[in-house]
């Protein structure tokens, strides 16, 4: 599934990041890379952006960006 539509609080593992481009690269540099553990922690009042726990820190990213990340539940 995509990170953008992943359920809250479930432990997930990143299986892939789509497309090239500067956004995808920065996502990967921040740690959203194959094998990383990620957890959706919340969403902003208007539903976008979302908040994830990525390894040891929390990152906020837009749904559009989260839509580039493939994850599976663990």
């Amino acid at each position, binding site marked *: 599934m995509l990170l953008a539509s992943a359920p809250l609080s479930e432990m997930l593992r990143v299986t892939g990041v789509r497309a*090239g481009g500067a956004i995808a690269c920065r996502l*990967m540099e*921040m740690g959203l890379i194959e094998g990383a553990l990620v957890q959706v922690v919340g969403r902003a009042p208007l539903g976008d*952006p979302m908040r994830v726990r990525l390894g*040891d820190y929390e*990152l*906020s990213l*837009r749904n559009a*960006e989260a839509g580039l990340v493939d994850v599976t539940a663990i």
Partner: protein
Amino acid sequence: MRSDPPGESVRPDPTGKTHEASGRGRAAIVALIGNPNTGKTALFNALTGYRRHVANYPGVTVDVGRGRVRGVRTPMELLDLPGTYSLAAVSPDEMLVTNVTCGRVAGERRPDCILAIVDASNLPRNLYLISQLLELGLPIVIALNMVDIARSRGITVDCERLSQRLGITVIPVVATRKKTIPPLVEALERAVAGTPPPVLPDLPPKLVEESAALHDALEEGMQPAETLRVLLDRDGYAEQQFLERGGSPARVAEARGRLEQAGIDGPAAEVRARYKWINRILEGIISRPETPVRTWSDRMDRILTHKLGGAVLLLVVLYVVFESIFRWAGPLMETIDRAFAWLGAAATTLLPEGVLQSLVVDGIIGGIGGILVFLPQIVILFAFIAVLEDCGYMARAAYMVDRLMRSIGLSGRAFIPLLSSFACTIPAIMGTRVIADRRERFVTILIAPFMSCAARLPVYVLLISAFVPASAYLGGWVELQALVMLAMYLVGVVVAVPAAWLLKSTVFAGPSSGFFLELPSYKWPRLGAVWQRMYFGGRKFVINAGTVIFAVNLVVWALGYFPRSAATRVAVQQQAQALSWDEQRVEAELAGAYLRDSFLGRMGRAIEPAIEPLGWDWRIGVGVIASFPAREVVVATLGTIFNLGAEQGEGSVSLRTALKQAKRPGTNQPLFTLPVALSIMVFFALCAQCSATLVLIGKETGSWLWPLASFASMTTIAYLAALGVATAARAVGQWLW
């Protein structure tokens, strides 16, 4: 940068030199580099003892802190560079770090050593930047900061083993605890005289090979770290640099072709390789608890960013901030006003009447007082912003407003600069350098002047207290005057929204660069950091804007003073004799006549036809014209125009009375009616009357087109809005009475 042409405001040295020559002094230069939110500034302060000088690089309008490291035998200068996640920069801030480490900033030689600061509770991601720094070939020391916070989360890092594996010194520190600093200082001293790091990250061999080949082809024109970026970032900044230095595009294309065949299709391969290396290095180094520890920070966060509660709380916080500014800044501003009025009065008695007295009192003392009086509002707002940012709340605010800002084409990152604009646009525009997306940054810069800055407040205060009835509704809870004040602030915001949307849909149309924001743990704001932010914000205002305001005040003074022709004096004296005026009346009439015949007065009369529909006369015209270079002079100018002298402040009762009593020339009708007052305020709310800001916009956008366009469009909008408000208010007034 990755995908952007070079940011205009971060030009590297056009001669293409790498600055290695030891020019400035004998001190070794140590670059302090690290991710954002790692406590970099706290460490900088701990090492330099809060003595921070601002480094100004040509073409770069951000301040980089420099300071001498204390407690060392070899002289060392520490450079506090902006936080960055990677040397593959996405924003001008990050680009500065890349440029400085590669020796590409004119007037600054390449650092001799790197002090990398890393967050102990966040090691894997922090090591990404480290992996790139290792490739620079400079001696490097790692400060593992915030080990206390890590411990509270149950995370421990084996520094010894990490140090062994990386081949460089890793010192655990808590930047806010002095005892932990000396070992770091010792390590720095050894490193400065030491060797480049022995261990390098495992990048794919083919990549390293091609990068080295490119590097050799340019004969040392670029660092190996840069040629790596040439290969990986298509149409990026590094590639342009390579071509400028005479590198052949064919060579780059061929190299990329070979890499693709080897399975390296772009930067993604590099990122994966680095993380693989990081995981290998970190094996067994970090021990974490089985289940993550929920700290007080996490618990607070659930409340503060709750879907509904979080939004409400943000509004409350904003309300508290602005309310406090008015409450505290008011008395402070009045004190400064009174102090300078006293000074002016003292000078008036000491100096003989004439040009010199007027120059000193109105021009110089009035000018300096007119600048300092704005400091309380500016400094208080910056203090609030610094506290909110330091404690971590600002990131949550940006996260919550991002969706709203996206509807006009901006992102959450524009929130802080736009909020800062309510104090002073100058530091706010400088703060847009954290916005990665060039188009977004430009739009933010262009709408920042619409936020009512500190300098507009005196106009609002004066006119509202004089012409808006002090009625209260809902049992005293809602004051009409406060409502009108709020309305004036909102006028700017209300106009900025469609302006931003228009700009982003036309001139600056394009896909967004995305919004990633790290949400750091909450922490108690540090007084030192808050104080520094207050100080530097205020300093930027006084130096950048203040010098302009002072010069403008002198020019306005001169234009309003000269020429003092004898003919005018004779005419007034004749009138005085004919109508038997007393001495006070003669003085007042003489001052008025001089002003009317001065250069400034003539300008005001010249534009009278244009401002007549707004209900203004030539005297208001003079005030507005005088404010174009710097709106700060308007209240003092109004004081002069209405015959009271420039020492009047906006709280002055006599100025208020004078305005209320002012009559239209030749009639008994009051000049200032409520519609006129409203139209003046709306004009000031929307007009670009700050040359210091316009100059800065020119520097930050790299073109004089934008300040000109900004000035022209804002003046037009202000005029039309003032016209609309005046007409509407008059119509409503007629309908009501």
